């Protein structure tokens, strides 16, 4: 293990803007799979049922799939920018 020596940092407040950043518009999409599962008033209901599952159960089982889909999209869409 090597500790890469770093030059002393300028005092906070005088920080230079980092040459790279993780900012991307696509990142905002991540809010969807974070916020939707927390809105209990949307899914705290019995119907419509699906294959015998009450809405409360089948709808929540979709959250992980939504999370996987959205994070995958964000990853792919922001990948090119990070290859500097």
């Amino acid at each position: 293990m090597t500790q890469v020596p770093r030059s002393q940092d300028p005092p906070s407040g005088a920080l230079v803007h980092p040459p790279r950043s993780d900012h991307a518009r696509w990142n905002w999409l991540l809010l969807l799979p974070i916020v939707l599962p927390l809105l209990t008033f949307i899914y705290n209901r019995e119907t419509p049922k699906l294959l015998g599952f009450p809405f409360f159960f089948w709808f929540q089982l979709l959250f992980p799939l939504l999370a996987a889909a959205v994070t995958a999209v964000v990853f792919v869409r922001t990948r090119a920018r990070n290859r500097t």
Partner: protein
Amino acid sequence: MNVTEFVIVAVLFTAVSIVGFLASRWRRASQDSLEEWALAGRGFRSWISWFVVGGDLYTAYTYVAVPALLFGSGAIGMYALPYVAIEYPLVFLIMIRFWSVSKTHGYVTAADFVRARFGSPTMALAVAVTGIVATMPYIALNLIGIQAVLITMGINGSWPLIIAFAVLAAFTFTSGVRAPALISFIKDVIVYVVIGVAIFYIPAKLGGWTHIFDAFNAHFKATPPGTAYLLTSSNQWLYITLAVGSAFAIFLYPHSITGVLTTRNRAVVKRTLAALPIYSFILGLIAMFGVMAIAGHITPLPGPNGKPDTNTVVPNLFQHMFPSGFTGLAFAMIVIGALVPAAFMSIASANLFTRNIYKEYLRPEASEREQARVSKIVSLLVKVGALLFILLINPQFSIDLQLLGGALILQTLPAVMLGLYTRWLHRGALIVGWAAGLIVSVWTYYVTPNVALKEAHWGGSGWSLSHLGLHTDVTLYIGFVGVVVNLVIAFAGTALLRALRIGEGTDQTAPADYFTDVADTKAAEPAVTAGT
């Protein structure tokens, strides 16, 4: 004792243990540094890290406890789903920053980062101690997962538990993080086979999903306070705060941090986080076993303390539904599922001790080699401690302590996660906020009465707002209440300390460090992973 089941579990356990010992030869490297023993040279690529981090985060206890909660408490038990669904998008951007700054400076623990960022060995000590205290009962709970299987198989002695943990301790000692990493492949194959079959086979035997959910609904409507399968006005906020709090907490746990740091580069971190919700979906299916158990009229078997133990519900369901051969495979899934996280957890908490207590306060001149040796020994001690916890103290104590542990680890959020984004927070305010968050979490836990056991205290994670004199039946997650107090104090305290111009320490990190990728550090890296 069911011989067929026992033989299958024993054979698979032996096979997995051999893999664990051989793992030290995988991507061969000397195990004499934490970089190799604890982080496998930070070299895992996408597919491997998906298995590794997944194996690390989804514990045997999760497999039995999530369905057990649905079985025992109804709808509220489903909070696990929003929790495991939001955790990855939530930390998607946070963890790449953590990976980069850790790669740049060679951090092994979250406390290493806090120490350097805020110039505060004291805050680092706070993070380290919280991590160890929160993880110990978690390791113990994996033993409870194994114990639930043993009870169901009709084995009541503690000797198999001791043997299992002795073997686990031995291969963790010799192979480090490579052992659970390799074992996680086997674990997952078994998980996918067992769950894939069970999710179709059991409902078919029970008369279909409609019948299963009708039975579940009827059961809880008849049980006071009649929760049925929807949330109530009183537990809806508990549900939301539990999900958010747990989602932040999981990536503050030392074993998750260790898992993330074993990855090769930023793209691997991102790809792994994007693929991990697949495990969450599987966990959602596993949660359904709690619903099925009610329709199947499964009764919890008595635990070691003689009281009905709901953790035995899932093993008991498997045993009732499947022929012995397949039940054996399902039991092996739980037992092996316990080994992987337990190994990660003991490695991670040992690292906290070595880096942030031993090297910081006892032997600052400790070499790489010495640090690795100390971690190896401490990882053994941690496991012995967890074993004694289960064997000597009422297991319920471990369950309560683990529940509290999630709330405690959440109190490191301002220093670790906000610290990745801002240096504004003052180390003094962080320490006071952390302490206040801990006190509030413990206090809110203490004042909550335990309805099920008819005890006045230590009742659970839902703290009623009526304690503040408000006329409401709303309950909130204790850890969430703690972290809100923590954040308010951290921010107000920082404003005060800055106004008083109290020394804020030196930040050893530079803004660019948070974006470092593997290519940037190649030149500075010694040749590590020779061979495969």
